[in-house]
Structure formats: C-alpha cells, structure tokens
C-alpha cells in the first residue's frame, strides 16, 4: 500500500501566449489553462504506483474555481480524491508562501508515504516547491526522478542529473519531484471521466489550514515581481520570399557571406 499526495498546478497554455506589441508584455488574459505537463506526469506516476502497490492517490492544487477542471482531469486519470486550496488571501503567493500553504495541507491530510510533484511548473520555472516541502515537512527529497518504484517501505528512484545518473534508495515518507521523461501520461477513458465526476473535491482556505493572512499571498511572500516583458529580440527579420527555391537559396547565401557568417 502506498498513499501518495500529488501536487499539481494548472497553468496558462504557454503556446497561446502572445506579446502586446506596444508594451512588450505577454498577454495572459483569456488564455486557456491546463495541468502543467510535468505535473501531469507526476499524477500518472502516482496512479501507476497505486496500481502496482495498492493505496490511494490524493490530488492537491492551489488555485481558483477554474482549477476544478484540472483536478477533475487528475481524478479521471486515477486520483481518488482532490483538494482545492482556494482563498482570496492566497493570491500573489510566491514559492515561500505556496510551500507554506501546501505543507499545511499535507499535514492536515496526513497518512502519506510519498509527496509527488513535477520538477518545476512550466510557467514560472522556479523548481522550488518540492525541495521547500522537504524542508518544511522534515522529509528527505529525491529530485529529478525519471524512474520510481516502491519496495517495501523504501523508494528506489533513478535521478537524472547533468553529468550523471544516480540510483537512490530512501525510506518512506519522502518528497519526490519527477522529470518529463518519467512516463507518458494516460488519456482517461470516458468511463473514468464519468467516474471522476462523482469523486470528492474538498475546498480549503486559510482558516481551514490554520494559516494567518500574513503568512500567505503577497504579504507572506518574499519575492515580488516588478515587471514581466518579452525578451528583447533584436533580429533583422528579413523575409526572403521569391519565385524559386534556387533564387531564395542564392539570396540567403549572399547575405550570409556579406554578413561574414559564412566564409
């Protein structure tokens, strides 16, 4: 039996992001949201562990009412129940405050062997929640896992580092972050989607978690975002569109030679 708490974040669809040409700021309003890809693989990993060892998968997400869609999807993939952490006071939380909210949630849920999440969410790219939870919950951490297996009361994982791969063993409970290579997430069947609509999503706010307003949200955060802008792209943007491909190739090669790029 392995009880897994898996943490997910629903993020804006990054492929839809466009930049406002006058301000150079990315336009985020109106974008659709989906589970951050690596987090989805964490859900898949949790469900696979349950299928192999028995146990339960609890899905947790910090968000708003729209986040229910992401939680339903995770439940359709095989999650047993879900928690939506929602409170106006949570808005503007950085990783410090987010980890506090998640740690309080995990402690309240209790009875876990494994905390699973993606190595990072693809929007903020912070890669902090897993390690922060390790510290806050007093648990060991195994990051960048691309293979995991539970053997008795131990986790065996293969970690993907820069120059080397590491196989590690650690007693449960443990916080694990997974990489994109860990699996291919399943596409839930219609029956699973229907079953998921009957599973419980519990909503908790700051009061339920025993967190005061100054521990969460922008007030409880340490990092403030001052400005978000599209990276400067100082490119020539010369488009070569001519009759034949030979002409196009000639025009390109001439320019590259003139620029000294090709010698």
């Amino acid at each position, binding site marked *: 039996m392995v009880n897994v708490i898996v943490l997910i974040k629903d993020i804006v669809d990054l*492929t839809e992001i466009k930049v406002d040409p006058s301000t150079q700021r990315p336009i985020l309003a109106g974008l659709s949201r989906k589970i951050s890809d690596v987090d989805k693989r964490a859900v898949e990993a949790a469900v696979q562990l349950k299928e192999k060892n028995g146990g339960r998968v609890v899905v947790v997400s910090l968000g708003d009412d729209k986040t229910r869609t992401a939680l339903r999807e995770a439940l359709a993939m095989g999650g047993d129940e879900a928690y939506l952490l929602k409170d106006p006071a949570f808005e503007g939380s950085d990783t410090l405050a987010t980890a506090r909210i998640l740690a309080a949630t995990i402690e309240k849920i209790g009875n876990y062997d494994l905390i699973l999440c993606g190595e990072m969410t693809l929007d903020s790219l912070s890669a902090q929640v897993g390690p922060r939870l390790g510290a806050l919950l007093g648990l060991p951490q195994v990051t960048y896992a691309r293979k995991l297996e539970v053997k008795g009361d131990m986790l065996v994982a293969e970690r993907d580092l*820069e120059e080397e791969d590491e196989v590690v063993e650690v007693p449960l409970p443990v916080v694990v972050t997974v990489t994109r290579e860990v699996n291919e997430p399943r596409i839930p069947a219609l029956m699973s989607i229907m079953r998921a609509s009957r599973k419980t999503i519990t909503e908790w706010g700051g009061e339920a978690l025993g967190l005061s307003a100054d521990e969460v949200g922008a007030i409880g955060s340490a990092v403030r975002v001052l400005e978000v802008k599209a990276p400067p792209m100082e490119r020539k943007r010369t488009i070569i*569109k001519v009759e034949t491909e030979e002409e196009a190739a000639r025009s390109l090669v001439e320019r*590259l030679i003139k620029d000294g790029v090709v010698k």
Partner: protein
Amino acid sequence: MSATDSQGVIVYSENHNLLLELLGAGRRLADKLGTQLSAVLIGSKVTEERQKEAVKHGADRVYVVDEPRLKTFDVETCGAALLTVLKAYASKVLLIGATKRGKELAPRVAAVLETGCMTDCITLDLDGEGRLTAKRMTYGGSAIAEVVCLKKPQIATVPPKTFEKPTPSDRTGEVIPLRVALPEPKVKVVERRQKQQAAFRIEDAPVVVGCGRGFKKKEDVKLLEELAEVLDARVSCTRPLAADYHWMQEWIGLSGHKIRPKLYIAVGISGTIQHVAGIRDAQTIVAVNADEETPIFNAVDYGVVGDLYKVVPALTKLLKEKLRK
C-alpha cells in the same frame, strides 16, 4: 557576530568553476554594498589550492566545511553544512550555482530560513534600497521577469556561464574552517553512472541546423545532414522529434539544450516559445519554412519562405560551390 557580517555576500556552488563565476558576480554586489564577499567550500579533503583560488577570484573570506561525510553531494547534509555557515555568519545575499544540485539545495535552504529564492537568474543588481533584484525567464521562456527579494538572506541561483570568471589577482583573504554536526543522510546512493557523453557537445558547435515537424519522415533528415556537412554543422531537432518520435536523442529548447552558435538554421520548425528559448543567444538565426505566418519568422535574421524539400538541397548545392567543398 558583527553588524557588517549580516550585510555580507556569500556564494556557494558544488561546481568549483561555477563558484569562481559567482565570485565575479558577488564581488560587484559586495563592492556596491560596501561589504565583504565570502565563498563557502563544502566537501571532504578540500584542497588548499581551491581555497586560494577562491581568494584570488575575489573572496575576502573562505568558509571551509570539511567532513568525510561531505565527500559526495547529498542535499540534506550539504544543506545542513551551508545553514551552519549562515547561522554563524548571517549574510544579506546568498548566491548559489544553478546546477541541478544547486537548484534543489537553494529552495531547501530558503525554506528553513523562511526567505525567498530567485531561480536561474540571468542578471543580478541592487535597487535603490540595496535589495537584490534579478531578471529570470518565466512563462516557459517566453518572457523575462524582473524580480526583487524582500527578505534576508536574499537568495538567487545563477546558471553556469551567466557571468564571466574574474581574472585572478594576488589578493589576500581569510580562511575560516567550521566544525559542523551533520545529519546521517537518509537518501542512499546505490549506483552512480556517468552519462554517455556525446563525443562533441552541441553547445560547443559553431553552426547548428535544426529540424522540426516540417520533415515528413526520419529518412528525410538526410537532406539536412548533407547541408550540415557543407557547413561543418551539428544536426539537432525540436522536442517532439526527439521526445515523441525518437528520431534523435536530444533536442534544442527550454527543456533541452540551450545553444549559442554563430549560426543556427531552423528548418521546418514552427518556432514555439519553448524552442526559441533554446536558440535565443545564437548570433544569427535563419529559418526555412513554407508557412509565412509561422512564429519562427519573428525570431530570425533571415527567413526563407519555401518548401524545405527544395530549399535545403538548393542551399547545400550553392554552399558547396561557394565554399569550394
């Protein structure tokens, strides 16, 4: 502990080369703040040479935590060692090398200290009030966020090659060894194997040609290989071609290799923000794509609108003549 101690700048990386780069960045911050710069060396049998190197590259102080248990990197033990240093010598700014190990260490330390951490910073500066500000990629690499850390110590992780290694000079510095009570590591490494290194890293290639989903089948990549041969270039691809179709092992992009060649030619690549994040630092970017509306053309110096199956062979032929190969 004196008042100036809590104003200091401390740098740490388990990667010695990156530590020296951080000393360059840290020196500038420390000078602006009018404070001391310290390097932390954690390990077993830390050589005197490394201590001297840290001083030569800008450290006023070198804190050395030398224990047999620190022979290999374990995030909990290493974190405990670093926290001991920070407890004895509180600092204002802590820079940690953003290797994968550094990036799992920094937030763990930040959580214990109840402070903020800014990941993968590409610039570091101080605002009017002397607070650490940084720029970092966000939204999957489609935007740059400028952030400030309001709590102390202000922690930032910095990727390799972001800052130049300073020129060593004959400076003097103080070496301070610290004794640390270390926890028994819970995570046990049972196997460690070196990754199979490509004989030649794509990051080092002066010219790279990349293929995307405009290629209909794997065999067609041969067209690009022929072009690459003329240009002495390396062939790579976008994430779907490697991760989903398994045409190649590695890809260029946010989650793959980030390259900065003299010339990058993107062929049949639509130019998702994730891919562009991996080529942003190329000196010259060329794209070949049949669709004039495809986003890659916003990120190029030269964009050729045309059928890659005709443009690429034409390019190869022409370059062969021009370069007399």
